[in-house]
């Protein structure tokens, strides 16, 4: 049974041209999917339609074959708690401590009052500590987030998503603001989460070489349309060219190097 089915999904902002145009694909449980494409292709829009942060114009998003098209507020909340999200700019509450930020991932499961007051159960706190340990952040647990490096902040972002016990992790350009070594740690972490915990991952990426190295499957988007959906090894320079259009020149260089290293 597929975990996620995107069915003829279209999105139009106002009266602009379609940002997503009849997107159709299926993701099985445990897959690691990379979505590549030039900026403005519709990658972020696609991820945000999956967890209904952006209302879709037409089509449907099905989780375990169940439509999510018309949900009431409670169902929407339940839907979102199953899906973790990671952002380019981490989107942490900088003034709060690392552990407080991680525990924010539990808010979706809590009553309004408990969430407002920040009352977390011992089991939740225990889980937060364990996740932070696994991500190598136990020394920073009580630091304020604005004292962390970019790579550490992104790991806090991952911890916040993991404590949701999500079935699916959506990552919107998680390494676009990081230096290469921090980027590698984050991508390795995502890979580990995928393999060890079996959590399905969809990650938007700018860098083709990173997508080829980590993903099992690459979906290329251009102008809101899927132009390729294939395993990394079957990507050819021609396909990359089609995904990136005129921007492709330098990318093909990376692509050649990638094959040389492999």
């Amino acid at each position, binding site marked *: 049974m597929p975990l996620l089915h995107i069915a003829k999904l279209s999105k139009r902002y106002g009266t602009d041209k379609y940002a997503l145009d009849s997107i159709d694909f299926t993701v099985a449980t445990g897959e690691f999917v990379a979505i590549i494409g030039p900026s403005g292709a519709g990658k972020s829009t696609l991820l945000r339609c999956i967890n209904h*942060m952006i209302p879709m114009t037409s089509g449907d998003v099905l989780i375990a074959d169940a439509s999510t098209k018309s949900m009431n507020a409670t169902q929407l909340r339940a839907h979102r*708690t199953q899906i973790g*999200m990671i952002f380019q700019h981490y*989107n942490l*509450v900088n*003034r709060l401590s690392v552990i407080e930020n991680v525990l*924010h991932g539990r808010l979706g*499961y809590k009553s*309004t009052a408990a969430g*407002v007051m920040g009352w977390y159960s011992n089991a939740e706190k225990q889980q937060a500590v364990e996740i932070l340990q696994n991500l190598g952040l136990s020394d920073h647990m009580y630091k304020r987030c604005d004292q962390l490096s970019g790579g550490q902040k992104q790991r806090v972002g991952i911890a916040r998503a993991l404590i949701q016990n999500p079935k699916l992790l959506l990552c919107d350009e998680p390494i676009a603001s990081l230096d290469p070594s921090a980027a590698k740690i984050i991508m390795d972490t995502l890979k580990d989460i995928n393999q060890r915990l079996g959590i399905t991952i969809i990650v938007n990426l700018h860098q083709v070489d990173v997508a080829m190295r980590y993903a099992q499957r690459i979906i290329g988007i251009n102008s809101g349309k899927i132009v390729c959906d294939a395993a990394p090894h079957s990507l050819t320079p021609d396909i990359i060219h089609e995904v990136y259009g005129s921007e492709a020149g330098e990318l093909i260089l990376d692509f050649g190097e990638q094959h040389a290293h492999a």
Partner: protein
Amino acid sequence: MQANTTIIVRPWNAATVILRTTIMSLIIITGYAFTTFNTRDVDFWAGVDMLGSNFSALLLTPYLKNITFDVMIRNLFITIGLGFLTTIFGAAIALGLALLAAQNLAPRWLTVIIKGLTAFVRAVPTVLWVLIFAVSAGLGSVAAVLGMTFHSAGYLIKAYAESFEEIDNGTIEALKASGANWWQIVFQAVLPSSATALLSWTFLRFEINFSTAIAMGAAAGAGGIGYDMFMASGFYLNLHEMGAFTYAVLAFAVVLEAGATRYKASLRK
């Protein structure tokens, strides 16, 4: 290459024309005023001399005559109390309404209505609100509290709402995406992120309300040190006593400023 063309750095446009006309008019008006003052034959230098002696009476030889030191301190605290109470009331009202006036937290139509209403409340000066409330409450402390609270709320709603709007929308998005609801987002992300800004605005408003409270003591009969100052200047014509009150007010202002600076620094850590 373009030796003959003059390069215009600041071209004439509507903005520069208005600016220059304004400055020219101000210069002309000032010149006109100075040449046509009715000086009633008072010599300019004699006037300066008297101003100097008045200031030295005020600032160099302060002493109390008609009230005791204890009474002055008590009345100072009445004024502080008026400023404090109206700030707290205003802040409490503002906190709730500002959440509904911030564009990242409330529907647009609601923010427009609330911001419009508060703009009206702020456009009417505090003193006028006090006088308006005096119609039903009678001139005195009740009217002062109501009027000052009203204007403080209008001011703080705008200030708080803008502080909320300035916080990173990404954090709101992140919590929403994890299933958190509006109240949880407000208390877990919005308020922690804007706490120092809210506090700065509240302190600033307290400073404003403290000085307004002095004026209200005299103008609206709200009591406190403002009323003592009114009596010293208008009734006893005693500049020395006026000086003592001035120093009392100044001392409190310094304490307030120092306290606010420290408190904000400790929050930022």
